[in-house]
């Protein structure tokens, strides 16, 4: 991977906007992503994550604004942007009737990888993604996780400096997901900047920084710790048999902001004014008073899911149906 002598950030987005007939899919997004980041884009379906990625990868042309990949404009210097980026689109986007190796070789040729490099790189990527023994299998006969790993391998054949991934692990089993992320971090350690859109909070948690998108705008941007730290108050885990009956009891307490069930555990958010220890004791005694036994009350920390639930005001709640980011790429050029 060649690092350009300049020190321009991996990605600099300035007032980027994309309108479809009646919807603003990306609404004046401005942000800078430094080199070496694993940058997560999170947000509900229809928030504009996919459209943003399409604009940044030159697949679509923005209505206004611009973005710069290592200092090169995605609208005016596409030819210079393209060789430096890799883009793994949502869903499977390879040729099912081509074998694993044929897919890799085809995209290598297309991206102008030197002939002599194709073989060794392909071998390395296949080994890396555990696909070596499937080289001659047609892509359509791979499992979901293997398909995604192949798509990643194909994207990486040109050794991009900036990699865009649009929900790369949707529909992939947990083991393959973990595997996939291990690969991403390996690459990141070697200097590749990664921008990934994901619906999974556990994946967002692994990013160096995250941006939360809603209705086309970035409404929050921070490190995962930073986002969690913004949650006002204390998070307390309550474990109690028959937690359904316990929920109303907890909601009655004056300092409790919210109670959410997470598996068998109740996640209680308490107001900041109540010091943690005090709250723990108050909760325990309230439950005992109501006849609950085997009660466990432990201080915990906020996770991203809770953070977004509390930090995103109701007015920003996503519209459920406008999946503008599935509009076809027909107008890209």
């Amino acid at each position, binding site marked *: 991977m060649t690092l350009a002598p300049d020190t321009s950030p991996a990605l600099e987005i300035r007032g980027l906007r994309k309108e479809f007939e009646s919807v603003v899919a990306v609404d004046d997004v401005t942000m800078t992503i430094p080199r070496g980041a694993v940058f997560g884009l999170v947000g509900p379906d229809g928030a504009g994550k996919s459209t943003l990625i*399409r604009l940044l990868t*030159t*697949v679509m042309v923005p209505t206004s604004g611009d973005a710069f990949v290592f200092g090169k404009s995605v609208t005016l210097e596409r030819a210079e942007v393209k060789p430096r980026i890799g883009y793994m689109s949502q869903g499977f*986007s390879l040729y099912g009737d081509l074998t694993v190796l044929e897919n890799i070789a*085809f*995209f290598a040729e297309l991206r102008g990888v030197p002939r002599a490099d194709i073989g060794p790189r392909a071998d390395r990527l296949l080994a890396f993604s555990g696909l070596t023994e499937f080289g001659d299998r047609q892509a359509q006969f791979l499992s979901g996780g293997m398909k995604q790993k192949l798509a990643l391998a194909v994207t990486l054949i040109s050794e991009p400096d900036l990699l865009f991934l649009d929900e790369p692990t949707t529909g992939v089993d947990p083991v393959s997901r973990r595997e996939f992320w291990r690969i991403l971090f390996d690459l990141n350690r070697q200097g590749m900047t990664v921008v990934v859109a994901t619906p999974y909070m556990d994946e967002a948690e692994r990013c160096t920084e995250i941006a939360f998108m809603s209705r086309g705008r970035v409404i929050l941007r921070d490190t995962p710790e930073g986002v969690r730290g913004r949650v006002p108050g204390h998070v307390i885990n309550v474990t109690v048999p028959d937690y359904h009956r316990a929920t109303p009891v907890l909601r009655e307490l004056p300092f409790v902001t919210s109670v959410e069930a997470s598996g068998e555990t109740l996640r209680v958010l308490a107001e900041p004014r109540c010091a943690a220890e005090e709250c723990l004791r108050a909760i325990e005694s309230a439950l005992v008073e109501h006849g609950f036994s085997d009660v466990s009350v432990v201080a915990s920390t906020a996770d991203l899911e809770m953070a977004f639930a509390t930090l995103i005001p109701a007015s920003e709640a996503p519209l459920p149906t406008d999946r503008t980011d599935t509009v076809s*790429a*027909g107008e890209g050029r």
Partner: protein
Amino acid sequence: MRRALAIARKEFIHIRRDPRLLLMVVLLPLIQLFLFSYAVSFDVKAVPTAIYDQDHTPMSRQYIDALEQSTYFHVTGYVNSDAEVDAEFETNKTRVVVTVGHGFGNDIAAGNPGQVQILIDGTEPNSAQAAQSYSAVLSQLFGAKVAIAQLQYKGADPTKVAGLTTTTRTWYNPESRSANYFVPGLIVILLTTVAIQQTANTLVKEKEQGTYEQLIVSPIHKMELMVGKIAPWAVVSALEVIAISVIGILAFQIPFRGSVALFTLGTILYVICCLGIGLLISAIAPTLDAANLIAGLVGILPGFMLSGFIYPLDSVPPFLQLLSYIFPTRYFMTITRTIFLKGGGFDVLWPQFAALTVFAVVIVIASSAAYRERA
């Protein structure tokens, strides 16, 4: 160049691995070739014919004999009433009923024209028309024979009588074989089908698979993509033309009387036209289904209907005749048939070549523009 080659190589893999596609470009043309050459024969021979002899004289018997001896009519039976005539037609037993009227023999003996009525089942116009002309010729010949006999009887030398002799000879296809007409036409049709349909599909398919995005994020130039996508179909089309021509010439004894070079030139021009049409469709069609539908509408339908493949273009309504001029198929149809059957050269075919060239230039410009704009 390297990227265009990569695309072309990939397209060939798609063709090789798609059994339906192989079926369409290899088996279907062969089936059509045999179907049109053997089964769909427009050769009209042995038309089933019934005889209604109302006269029963030696003269009427003579006329009927002449008819029975002709290979064009096959006498299937005799009827004796109008009701039976209806029944013959309705049961589809015969296509022609020849009625020799009362007094046929007497009229001729008296020197008056004898009356013969020929009823033809017109539900199938092609054989109806053939039957009509056969029977007209047959009656004329019979009439001439009778006249000569009468002149001889009166002591005149028939060779000294001024008369009119018609000699008809069918050129280029003396036996009037349908295969000679159909096989060269079929080359045109198959070329049209494959080239337009497949090019129309090719880009839309990438869009539907989601692979198109992957192509545009790569540094490939649009024109490289276009060339890479189209080249394989140009090759397949060329192979198709060669294969059908060879099978036609060897298996169906289709004559090839003209210049191979000229035919090659015409084919190249026409393939450019078809690929252009296909590309235009691919650029504007929103889905694969739409692409197929449009390809069928603008490519294949006019190919069959407005090219003179089945019906001579003189016999279609004037509006459709006008319409046929804007599709390239009719020009290439004329070129192909003229070169195969008549051996005609550029001196006679230059208007068709000129028309194809104009169409090729226009469609290439239009489709490239649409492709740059929309794809």
